[in-house]
């Protein structure tokens, strides 16, 4: 009873102190940081006119269109387009509008260059997904050239660049034509549309630019066919690659007469073998082809004459040509060599001369150059200077000018695949992280600088250095562990295969490493990182070793391609071990076991359902074999609508490999595919801590059904599997299952008639919260399901406890027949949701908050109490005391409880929470295109003083108390003396 009273008391205290934990505006940036990224750049257009700010417009793989400051790399504006709205091409029209063509040529938008306001949007009716082209005439003679040409499939559109109205539309008579190139003749208002019909026929249309009228049409066919790659070398000549990719076909179509000439690549390049690609670049009289080992520039002297102009060895990159004057065009080449990256600029009419040659030194962790974009400027001595925008292998973006990197952006962070939080080293002698290694000289220098600063002798540069030192040594940015556990390293792996460690204090990159195992190579064609795990976290045994990270990747999407493993020191970023696996990676199971050096055991399931144990030491096998009968795992096959549960069998499979185990299927749940389709699953976090199993209510005790093996599965009727608006309420149905993954038992099943996905769910302790769309009300709903263990319900009898007749000490097993009671309730929720997560704290005492990533890319913290199935319209007095909120039909959205306050985490994908050491506080890291980090206290920081705590008042009180002691002592002395005299 006492315990219950105590619990209720603490609960009441916690509840009283909850609700608003909002920020004041001047507290922004104290505990949080926000970083804006754009992703890997695909296209770039420079805008460097004499007046105004110089900027570069880029479009990226993350469907971002952005305007960057050319001086600093800062974002002026940016827009994240829809998920399926891939940007195909970007250009600038009229000098003030940014034109983007997206969604496979069907959406054309114009954005205002200075502020990014959308000016107009045109939807083009493109019959089939095909290669789309955007052609913005370059010459700016006023009034004439304001038509934008877009081609897709067999149609050509001309749109006014002022308002996006379609001026004319030409549907070419041959239906299966695929337009490859559009060019404009110099002399007349004629445009040439060049296309292929089928694989072997070649068609040229001469179309009037003003009206879209077909002036002339000519056709020709080529026996061995085309593969579809072309390059425009003159206004009236293109070079195409033939069907076998072994020869080049030069096609001239001047005045409607088509000339074809075939040249074998092996005639041009004797050592050539293998595959060839045409590089999409517009050179005057030249084309660039990409054979595996090098890039080759070919000069087209006439239809019949191609010759090798230059050979550039890989790894290298080449820009498109940039017109400098009427007859000259410049292009740039970047070539890797041992001494650095050579950057060369040449004019196309004189390849032997290098206009510019510079050697760059780039961080080796950035990998190879992938793409470069060139731009020129006029130097003070009236010569041309060149700057290039460089996209590196790690997706970072840099601007190079005069042999220096002016700025660079770590844009790989826009595509984080997986993340984990790691501890920093303990503060003691000799332990420190990579960059903060101080020697005596640096220490002295720092102090000298500080002294100078206090004596007002420092120059502005030195002041900046002092500021940097202060920032580094300031409490939140230190590279050591702190008492509250706020300072940590966030280690992330990006899609480019780069692993970066970010400091939670200010989000700076502490170290970064481009994993060699995840770089493209002959053995591993298209590697991708899968996930990141804690490999070694030394606690007691291997204290001298640094903790390390395991990164698992695979050589492509296919499930039978081999996987790769890398182990990285989490303090320094050194790759400790990197290996290519002999088997594929289908599923990774981190086990709650560690070996004697505190390396965590991991099981990797391959495509043949064999389990491979890592680390491969005899020690780990010994530990593993003891625990093997207790290891179960499951696999959700979403395409097949099957969930299967497995256990492991002792090794009979491979006598020569003791780390491989056979698996045995224990159970399977097959959802009938005509009525149900799996759309979402969710499980509890492995490392979640539950403080108490008992939930004390006003007049009762309930026991939570706490099992690590609960799997939440949501299925919908197949008709409702599409988007909202595609299904009627009558044909839609959503089923939610709670499944025990050891026994395959369905603990609970609930159906929501007239509901459909997308479903976002989170499982924690004994409850699951899921978000779905209710078609009848046409609103989003969130449901909560809480499960309680009825088999322990009779333990609340005090006499049983006293007499020892309770079953509290009975082991919990998934094989015992569960006797569960389920409570659930549903509420409306306004917004679409991208991701749901739940706060986790060190001991699980603090009440929980749901972190809901809304469609507006904000993260809302919603108290779990709003999703309590015991909420009723009129709660009783005791329920009110307990903190039960009266029932409302919808969940409240309090703007102050957005943890992202007035920021947006563009393209939000995932919300990760990690407990701090301080029980009240959880660390939250959200990522998408942007990164956001903050720490939140769901029940306020009840275990530490707030930052606006008045220490002066405390001191004053102590002084006052001491003074009072002495005064009263003197008084009592006096009184005692008086009494003695009496």
């Amino acid at each position: 009873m006492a315990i219950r009273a105590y619990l209720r008391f603490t609960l009441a205290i916690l509840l009283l102190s909850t609700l608003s934990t909002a920020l004041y505006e001047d507290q922004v940036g104290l505990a949080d940081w926000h970083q804006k990224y754009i992703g890997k750049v695909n296209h770039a257009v420079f805008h460097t006119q004499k007046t105004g700010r110089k900027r570069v417009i880029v479009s990226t793989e993350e469907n971002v269109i952005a305007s960057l400051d050319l001086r600093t790399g800062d974002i002026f504006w940016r827009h994240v387009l829809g998920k399926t709205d891939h940007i195909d091409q970007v250009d600038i029209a009229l000098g003030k509008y940014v034109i983007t063509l997206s969604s496979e040529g069907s959406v054309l938008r114009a954005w205002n260059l200075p502020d990014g306001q959308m000016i107009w949007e045109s939807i083009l009716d493109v019959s089939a997904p095909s290669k789309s082209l955007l052609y913005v005439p370059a010459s700016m003679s006023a009034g004439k050239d304001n038509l934008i040409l877009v081609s897709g499939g067999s149609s050509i559109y001309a749109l006014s660049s002022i308002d996006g109205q379609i001026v004319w539309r030409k549907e070419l008579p041959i239906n299966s034509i695929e337009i490859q190139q559009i060019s404009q003749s110099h002399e007349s208002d004629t445009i040439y549309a060049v296309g292929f019909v089928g694989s072997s026929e070649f068609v040229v249309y001469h179309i009037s630019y003003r009206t879209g009228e077909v002036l002339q049409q000519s056709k020709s066919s080529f026996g061995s066919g085309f593969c579809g790659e072309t390059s425009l070398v003159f206004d009236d000549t293109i070079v195409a690659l033939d069907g076998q990719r072994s020869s080049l076909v030069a096609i001239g179509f001047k005045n409607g007469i088509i000339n074809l000439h075939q040249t074998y690549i092996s005639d041009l390049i004797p050592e050539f073998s293998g595959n060839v690609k045409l590089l999409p670049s517009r050179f005057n009289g030249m084309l660039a082809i990409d054979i595996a080992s090098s890039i080759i520039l070919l000069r087209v002297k006439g239809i019949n004459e191609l010759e090798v102009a230059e050979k550039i060895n890989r790894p290298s990159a080449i820009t498109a040509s940039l017109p400098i004057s009427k007859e000259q065009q410049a292009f740039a080449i970047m070539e890797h060599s041992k001494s650095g990256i050579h950057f060369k600029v040449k004019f196309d009419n004189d390849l032997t001369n290098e206009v510019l040659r510079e050697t760059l030194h780039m961080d080796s962790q950035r990998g190879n150059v992938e793409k470069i974009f060139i731009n020129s400027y006029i130097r003070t001595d009236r010569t041309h200077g060149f700057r290039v925008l460089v996209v590196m292998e790690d997706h970072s973006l840099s601007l190079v000018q005069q042999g220096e990197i002016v700025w660079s952006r770590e844009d790989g962070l826009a595509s984080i695949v997986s993340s984990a939080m790691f501890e920093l080293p303990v503060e003691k002698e000799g332990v420190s992280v990579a960059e903060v290694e101080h020697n005596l000289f640096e220490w002295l220098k720092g102090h000298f600088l500080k002294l100078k600063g206090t004596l007002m002798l420092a120059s502005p540069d030195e002041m900046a250095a002092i500021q940097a030192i202060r920032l580094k040594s300031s409490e939140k940015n230190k590279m050591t562990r702190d008492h509250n556990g706020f300072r940590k390293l966030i280690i992330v792996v990006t899609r480019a295969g780069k692993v970066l460690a970010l400091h939670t204090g200010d989000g700076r990159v502490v170290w970064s490493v481009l994993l060699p195992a995840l770089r493209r190579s002959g053995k591993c064609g298209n590697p991708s990182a899968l996930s990141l795990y804690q490999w070694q976290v030394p606690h007691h045994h291997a204290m001298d070793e640094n903790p390390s990270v395991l990164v698992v990747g695979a050589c492509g999407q296919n499930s039978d391609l081999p996987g790769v493993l890398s182990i990285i020191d989490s303090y320094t970023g050194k790759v400790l071990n990197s290996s290519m696996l002999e088997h594929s990676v289908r599923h990774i199971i981190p086990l709650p076991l560690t070996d004697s050096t505190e390396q965590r055991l991991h099981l990797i399931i391959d495509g043949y359902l064999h389990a491979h144990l890592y680390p491969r030491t005899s020690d780990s096998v010994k530990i593993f074999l003891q625990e093997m009968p207790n290891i179960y795992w499951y696999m959700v096959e979403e395409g097949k609508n099957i969930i299967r549960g497995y256990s492991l069998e002792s090794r009979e499979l491979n006598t020569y490999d003791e780390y491989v185990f056979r698996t045995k299927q224990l159970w399977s749940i097959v959802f009938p595919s005509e009525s149900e389709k799996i759309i979402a699953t969710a499980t509890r976090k492995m490392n979640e801590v539950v403080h108490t199993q008992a939930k004390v209510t006003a007049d009762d005790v309930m026991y939570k059904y706490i099992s690590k093996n609960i799997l939440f599965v949501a299925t919908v009727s197949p008709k409702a599997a599409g988007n909202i608006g595609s299904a009627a309420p009558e044909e839609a149905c959503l089923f939610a299952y709670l499944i025990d993954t050891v026994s395959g038992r369905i603990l609970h099943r609930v159906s929501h008639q007239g509901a459909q996905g997308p479903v976002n769910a989170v499982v924690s302790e004994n409850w699951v919260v899921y978000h779905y769309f209710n078609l009848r009300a046409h609103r989003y709903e969130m449901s909560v399901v809480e499960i309680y263990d009825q088999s322990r319900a009779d333990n609340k009898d005090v006499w049983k406890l006293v007499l020892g007749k309770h079953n509290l000490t009975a082991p919990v097993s998934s094989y015992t027949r569960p006797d569960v009671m389920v409570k659930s309730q549903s509420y409306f929720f306004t917004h679409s949701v991208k991701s749901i997560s739940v706060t986790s704290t060190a001991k699980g005492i603090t009440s929980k908050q749901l972190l809901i990533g809304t469609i507006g890319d904000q993260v809302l913290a919603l108290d779990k109490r709003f999703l309590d199935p015991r909420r009723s319209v009129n709660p009783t007095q005791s329920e009110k005391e307990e903190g039960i909120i009266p029932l409302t039909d919808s969940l409240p959205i309090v703007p102050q409880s957005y943890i992202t306050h007035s920021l947006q985490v563009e393209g939000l994908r995932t919300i990760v929470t990690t407990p701090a050491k301080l029980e009240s506080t959880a660390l939250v890291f959200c990522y998408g295109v942007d990164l956001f980090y903050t720490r939140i206290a769901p029940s306020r920081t009840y275990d530490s003083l707030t930052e606006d705590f008045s220490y002066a008042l405390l001191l004053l009180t102590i002084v006052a108390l001491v003074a009072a002691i002495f005064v009263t002592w003197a008084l009592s002395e006096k009184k005692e003396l008086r009494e003695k005299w009496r």
Partner: protein
Amino acid sequence: MVVSVSVFRWHCKARVTARWEAIALVAMQVSSFPSSNETAVPIYREREIGGSDIHRWIHFLAHAMMRSAAAAAAAFINSPPPFLFIVLISSHLLSLALAASPSSEEGYMITGRLKLGGATSKEFGLPSKPTNAKVILNGGQRITFARADGYFSFHNVPAGTHLIEVVALGYFFSPVRVDISARNPGTIQAALTENRRVLYELVLEPLKEEQYYEVRNYKLFCTVSTNSEEHLCILFILLQTREPFSIMSLVKSPMGLMMGFMILMVFIMPKMMENIDPEEMRRAQEEMRAQGVPSLSNLLSRGN
């Protein structure tokens, strides 16, 4: 008439109340003649706020000027948070008929308009340009952006019931249910899902503005002074404090409670002791001495 506006932002720690933080000071100078005397209040450290904010302030001051300056000043004095009544009327009064035009054989076009409540000076930092406004169909299936005049459209939307959401930082928009009828092509019905209000035209307005930060207690001081006969200086000072300083909050704090208890003990205990019979008191004291519990006074006196 010339209005010259200077905007300052300055932080000060006043002597008495340490937490005062003045966020803005707006000086409006009204003169009947063009005047070069722009520095209205030179005593404060000047710091400019971003360009758009100045723009906004000018906007609101211009509106204020439409009434009379004096009336505006009076109104400011009467209502504490000054931004509440500054409502700017949207200049576009175009109405939009609610209809879907069949844009192609595949589907219909939904066209609507976004109406953000004009520029409001509710907060200095938050931009409310429609550049930030995104319009989302069916939970992310398609995303479009509002143009400068607020218009947006979705093309090739099939018949059925759809959901449109608007994302604009600083505003709370209700999702809109849009029914495109398959039987009568071209008829569209729209309703807000939050309050089931039926929209006769697809003009989306925010239900409310969202304030992402804890609201501070604002106090407005206004002084009107005349430099010379032509110049009228109106000085608005917006003062804010994190928590209003009050004696009660001090008393209620743990420190205050401790102090209160101590004072209580110091002054009331002796009074209570006096009421006890001296004989009994002595007995009790002897008992205590016998038990060897040293009293504080004894301890201190022994130290001497």
